C-alpha cells in the first residue's frame, strides 16, 4: 500500500525542468510532466522566449526532443530571435532534437460552410511529435485561431479536445496566451489548462522597467506565490528568487589582510574572513572608495582576483585618484588581477544589475567583489527591493566563497548607523568612516562597528589619507575630547616637549645627587685624615710622658741610695707613681 501511495505521489508530482534554475526553484522542479502549462502575459513580456528556451534547453542539454508550433512567427524569425540568447536552433533542428513548425493562418482566406473540426491541426501536430519522438510541445499562441475561425463554439470544443489529446499522449505542453483586460488571458484559455498557470508581467516604476513572474496556480504541487523579478539577457530567461539560494553556505576560517596593518590589528590582528561580506559606510568624502580600493589592491597583490563594480567613477578616474594616494592600480588591471567595471546604477533595473553582476562574476571568477557604492541602487528601486537584490547577491557570493566588499553612502542629516539598518544585517563586518569637525577642521575617523566571528577593536582611529597611502593613527581621547588632525599633532608636540623637559629635569636631579655624594665622600676622607693625625699626636705624647716618668723613678732611686736614710729598696713616703695609661 505504501508502495502504491508512493507511486501515486510520484505521478502527481512528476515535473520536468524548464532550464531556468530560478523557475525550477520556485515550482519545486519545473512544470508538471505530461500536462499543459499556460504562460500568460501581455505583449513583450517574454512568453515566446520562455517557451523557446523550454524546448531548446531540453533539446540541447537534456537530449529531450521538442516540437515548437508557432502560429505567429516563422521558423526563421524564431531562429534569429533565439540566437540572441545563445541557442542555435538550426543546429538543433538539423540534429532532429527540435522541430519548428510555423502554422500560418489568416482569417480572410477562410469561408465557413457547415460543420468542421480541427483534425488537420491534430494530424499535423501528431506527425511532428512522431517525427522526432517529442516529449515537449509548445503552442505559441493558439489565440490566433480565435481570429481565424469564425465559430467560437466549435473552436472552444476543439481546444478542449486538443488539451485532453495532448495529455493522453503524455507530452509536456506549454502554451502561451495574451493577457486579457482584467482576466488571465484574453480568450479565457486558462479555462482549459487547469494544471499550471504562470503569469509574466512587465512594469515600469520610476522609469525603470522590471519583468516579473508569478505562478498563479499549480495543481497538485506547492509553489511560491510571490512575484519574482526576472530578466532576459544573453543567456535567456533567468529568474533569481531569494528562496532558491538559502543559508547553507560554508564559512571559511581563512583570513585576508586589508593591506593596512593597523586595520588588521583592529580586526583582531588578522584581517577579514574569506567569503564574508564587508560594509564600509560613511558620509560623503570620508574616503570609503579609497579604503575599498586599497583593500582590493592589497588583496590583488596577495594573489586574489578582484572584480570592482564602480557606479560613480570611471575606471581611469579611479586609477588616477588611487595613484594620488600611492596606490597604483594600473599594473593590477594590466595583469588582469583587478577588473574595474564602471556603469551608472540608474542605467538598468535592479534585476538587470544583479544578473549583469552575476554574469561577470561567472566569467571573471573573482575571489573578491567590490560594489562601490550600493547606496546608489536606491535610485533604481525601493529599499526593500534593494535589500532583496543584495540578499540574493550576498548569498550567491557566499555560496561561491567570494568576499563581498560594499561601500554605502550615508546621507548627511540622518543617523550614521540608521540608514544602513536595512542592509547591515546582511553584513559580517561593518567599518564606519566618519568625519569629526573640530577647531575648523574636518578629520576622518574610522571604527569597526561590528565584525562577526572575531574580537574586534572598540577604538576610534584617525584615518589619514596621505601621498603614501592610508594610515591609521591613534586619536586622543582625554579631558579635551577626541583630538584629531592639527589638534592631535599639536597635542603630540606638546606632549613630546613636556616629556623632553621632564627628562632633562630628571637628569639634572640625578647629577645633583651624584655631586652631593662626591662631596660627602670628600668630607669623610678629610675627617679620616684629621682623625689619623690626632691619633699620632696622642701616641707621641704618651710615649713622651712614659719616658719622663721612667726617668723620674730612676732619679728618686739614686737620691735614696745617696741619702742612705731609708732601707734599701723601700722608698720614703712618696706619692705612688702614675700608672701608665
Amino acid at each position, binding site marked *: 500500500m505504501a508502495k502504491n501511495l508512493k507511486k501515486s505521489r510520484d505521478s502527481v508530482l512528476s515535473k520536468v525542468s524548464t532550464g531556468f534554475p530560478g523557475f525550477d526553484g520556485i515550482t519545486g522542479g519545473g512544470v508538471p510532466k505530461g500536462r499543459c502549462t499556460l504562460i500568460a502575459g501581455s505583449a513583450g513580456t517574454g512568453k515566446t522566449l520562455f517557451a523557446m528556451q523550454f524546448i531548446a534547453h531540453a533539446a540541447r542539454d537534456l537530449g529531450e526532443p521538442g516540437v515548437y508550433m508557432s502560429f505567429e512567427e516563422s521558423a526563421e524569425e524564431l531562429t534569429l530571435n533565439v540566437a540572441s540568447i545563445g541557442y542555435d536552433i538550426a543546429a538543433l533542428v538539423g540534429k532532429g532534437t527540435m522541430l519548428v513548425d510555423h*502554422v*500560418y*493562418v489568416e482569417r480572410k*482566406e*477562410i*469561408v*465557413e*460552410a*457547415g*460543420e*468542421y*473540426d*480541427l*483534425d*488537420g*491541426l491534430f*494530424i*499535423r501536430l*501528431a*506527425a511532428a511529435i512522431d517525427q522526432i519522438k517529442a516529449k515537449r510541445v509548445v503552442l505559441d499562441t493558439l489565440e490566433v*485561431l480565435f481570429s*481565424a*475561425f469564425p465559430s467560437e463554439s466549435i473552436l472552444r470544443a476543439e481546444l478542449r479536445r486538443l488539451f485532453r489529446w495532448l495529455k493522453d499522449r503524455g507530452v509536456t505542453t506549454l502554451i502561451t496566451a495574451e493577457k486579457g483586460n482584467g482576466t488571465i488571458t484574453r480568450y479565457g484559455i486558462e479555462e482549459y489548462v487547469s494544471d499550471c498557470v504562470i503569469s509574466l508581467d512587465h512594469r515600469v516604476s520610476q522609469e525603470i522597467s522590471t519583468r516579473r513572474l508569478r505562478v498563479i496556480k499549480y495543481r497538485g504541487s506547492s509553489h511560491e506565490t510571490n512575484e519574482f523579478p526576472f530578466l532576459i539577457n544573453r543567456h535567456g530567461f533567468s529568474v533569481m528568487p531569494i528562496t532558491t539560494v538559502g543559508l547553507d553556505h560554508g564559512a571559511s576560517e581563512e583570513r585576508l589582510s586589508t593591506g593596512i596593518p593597523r586595520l588588521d590589528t583592529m580586526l583582531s590582528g588578522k584581517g577579514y574572513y574569506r567569503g564574508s561580506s564587508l560594509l564600509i559606510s560613511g558620509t560623503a568624502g570620508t574616503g570609503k572608495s579609497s579604503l575599498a580600493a586599497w583593500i582590493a589592491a592589497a588583496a590583488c597583490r596577495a594573489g586574489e582576483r578582484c572584480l570592482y563594480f564602480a557606479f560613480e567613477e570611471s575606471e581611469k578616474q579611479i586609477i588616477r585618484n588611487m595613484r594620488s594616494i600611492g596606490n597604483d592600480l594600473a599594473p593590477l588591471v594590466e595583469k588582469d588581477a583587478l577588473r574595474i567595471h564602471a556603469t551608472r546604477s540608474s542605467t538598468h533595473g535592479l534585476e538587470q544589475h544583479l544578473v549583469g553582476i552575476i554574469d561577470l562574476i561567472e566569467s571573471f571568477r573573482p575571489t573578491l567583489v567590490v560594489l562601490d557604492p550600493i547606496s546608489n541602487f536606491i535610485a533604481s528601486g525601493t529599499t526593500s527591493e534593494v535589500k532583496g537584490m543584495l540578499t540574493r547577491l550576498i548569498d550567491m557570493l557566499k555560496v561561491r566563497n567570494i568576499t563581498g566588499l560594499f561601500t554605502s553612502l550615508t546621507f548627511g542629516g540622518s543617523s550614521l548607523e540608521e540608514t544602513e539598518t536595512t542592509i547591515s544585517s546582511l553584513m559580517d563586518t561593518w567599518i564606519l568612516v566618519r568625519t569629526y569637525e573640530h577647531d575648523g577642521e574636518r578629520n576622518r575617523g574610522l571604527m569597526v562597528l561590528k565584525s562577526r566571528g572575531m574580537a574586534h577593536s572598540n577604538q576610534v582611529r584617525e584615518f589619514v589619507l596621505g601621498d603614501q597611502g592610508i594610515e591609521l593613527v591613534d586619536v586622543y581621547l582625554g579631558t579635551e575630547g577626541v583630538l584629531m588632525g592639527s589638534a592631535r599633532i599639536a597635542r603630540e608636540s606638546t606632549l613630546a616637549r613636556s616629556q623632553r623637559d621632564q627628562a632633562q629635569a630628571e637628569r639634572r636631579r640625578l647629577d645633583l645627587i651624584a655631586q652631593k655624594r662626591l662631596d660627602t665622600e670628600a668630607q669623610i676622607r678629610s675627617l679620616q685624615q684629621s682623625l689619623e693625625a690626632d691619633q699620632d699626636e696622642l701616641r707621641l705624647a704618651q710615649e713622651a710622658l712614659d719616658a719622663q716618668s721612667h726617668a723620674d723613678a730612676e732619679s728618686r732611686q739614686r737620691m735614696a741610695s745617696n741619702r742612705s736614710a731609708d732601707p734599701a729598696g723601700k722608698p720614703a713616703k712618696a706619692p705612688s707613681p702614675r700608672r701608665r695609661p
Partner: protein
Amino acid sequence: MTPKTTTPTSSARTKAPKSAKWEMRLYVAGRTPKCMRAIANLTQICEDHLPGIYHIEVVDLLVNPRLGKGDQILAIPTLVRQLPAPMRKIIGDLSNTEAVLVGLDLRPRL
C-alpha cells in the same frame, strides 16, 4: 482512404465559364460522416454548377499527413480551390450550399 479523383460527369445548368478548368482539392481525415458528407456535397455542387470543367482531388491527411502543410490545413474538412486563381479556402462539410457558392465566387459576395 486513398486519395481519389472524382471524374466529372456531363451536366448543364451553370453560369461558370466553360473555358476555365476548376481544380479543387478536398482535405479529409478518414471516412468520418463529416468527410463523407463533404465529398458528396462538393460533387453535387460541382455537378450542378461546373459540369465538365472541374477536377476534384481528395486528400486524406490520415494517410499522408504531410500534404496538409502546404495549404496550412487545420480544419477538416477543408476545400481549397486552386484554380482559377486566386486560391479560395472553404471549411466545413459544405452543407451550406449558398456559402460554398459564395466562397467559390460562383455567387457575388453580399
